[in-house]
């Protein structure tokens, strides 16, 4: 099972590294989104700290839609999704592998996004900001890939994925948004009470949605 997961993830990442299609486009997307935000919000020194966490989540969510959408759309276009499902590997393992690869892609986006935000908006990069974004990525990838797998098998996948994924991601944006806001304004997340500890809440959400997505993946991928 684990070998299949890793094999599928490595396959996706290798295809990406050889083709170099998605990553450059996503990096450009992230930078352009920041430029748009800069002009749209008319950001200056006094408003930047207030707006930066919101801009971070907006860009991250939309970059996620593109990254996860591609994960299954590319397979569908080349007709290799059926082939992949015909192999003895279980649908759950294939799904987990693709999720892993898509999560890695989104992490790569974040590697561009956070430094770019530091340059454009002067937002501090702290361990807490990085940890929040990484922990949120896990759950978002599980849900995003599940819905991308679903949307890829319908007629209007570009349309359906945002409509389904955006409302479902709201818990991550709510908790993560608050955590990033606190971390960027210099509050220590460790000082927050344990019950409302955003990283723990995000980790809980990760576990919940990983379980739900892995249960649902078999139904979505199984014809």
């Amino acid at each position, binding site marked *: 099972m684990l070998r299949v997961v890793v094999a599928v993830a490595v396959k996706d990442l290798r295809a990406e590294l050889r083709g170099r299609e998605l990553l450059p486009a996503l990096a450009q997307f992230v930078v352009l989104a920041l430029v748009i935000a800069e002009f749209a919000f008319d950001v200056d020194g006094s408003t930047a700290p207030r707006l930066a966490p919101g801009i971070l989540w907006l860009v991250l969510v939309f970059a996620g839609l593109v990254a996860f959408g591609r994960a299954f759309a590319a397979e569908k276009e080349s007709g290799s999704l059926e082939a992949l499902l015909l192999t003895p590997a279980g649908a759950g393992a294939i799904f987990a592998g693709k999720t892993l690869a898509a999560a890695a892609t989104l992490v790569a986006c974040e590697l561009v996004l956070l430094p770019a935000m530091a340059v454009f908006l002067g937002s501090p990069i702290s361990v807490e900001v990085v940890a929040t974004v990484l922990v949120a990525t896990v759950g978002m990838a599980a849900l995003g890939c*599940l819905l991308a797998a*679903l949307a890829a098998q319908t*007629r209007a996948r570009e*349309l*359906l994925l945002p*409509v389904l994924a955006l*409302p479902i991601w709201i*818990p991550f944006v709510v*908790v993560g948004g608050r955590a990033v806001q606190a971390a960027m304004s210099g509050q220590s997340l460790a000082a927050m009470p344990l019950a409302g500890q955003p990283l723990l809440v995000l980790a809980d959400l990760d576990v919940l949605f990983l379980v739900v997505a892995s249960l649902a993946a078999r139904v979505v991928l199984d014809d």
Partner: protein
Amino acid sequence: MTENRGLYALAAVAVAAMLVAAWTIFLYAPQDALQGPVQRIFYLHVSSAIAAFGCFALVVAGSVVYLWRGSLRGDRLGRAGAVVGLVFTTNTIVMGMIYAKPIWNWDPTQTWDATLTSTVVLWCMYAGYLLVRRFATPGRPAMRFAAIVGILGFVDVPVIYFSVQWWRTLHPGHVLLTARGPQLPPQMLLAFLVTMVATLYLAGVLVAVRYRLEAWRDAREDREVAAQLELASSAGAR
């Protein structure tokens, strides 16, 4: 027409029940001392919210049955529940806005609280549920995908509710289910209970009507497929 007689009777009772509810709301229940006549929205506002939740619970039940047994009836129940639930959610949101205008001095930036946010997201989730049905290949794939979305939405909404509770919540808490019993005067409580029962009944009748409609639609599709198969086999015989 005769096969619908039962549904017509149920619908007539629903109209009568809603009229009784209107009577209790506008004539029987006393005026609220603090909020004035606007408070009368409360009865139907809360009742529609409960009815909407009931409908979406039916969607989840239908989806689980469909995934478990592959039963068309479960899927049909999901289809019927989602449409009726969306209508009641819309009703709840619109009435809530009208209610909030004089009471909270409606300021959209100040009203992103847990109950409101999760209701709006609930609406989006089940609108998405209907969209999935429209875009997926009709038949089994559409049913499978819709069932997943129907269940996922129901899991997500409480999570959103509790995530937003981090912020201070403006929406009034529970006046009915408190440790000290209902916090409403008896006449208001009675008006509320009558309205709630009438609304739930109305929702049930609407789901039943919709279910019948979907059953006909399925039957028509079956007939069309059977006719085409027959055509194909007779062409093959020649």
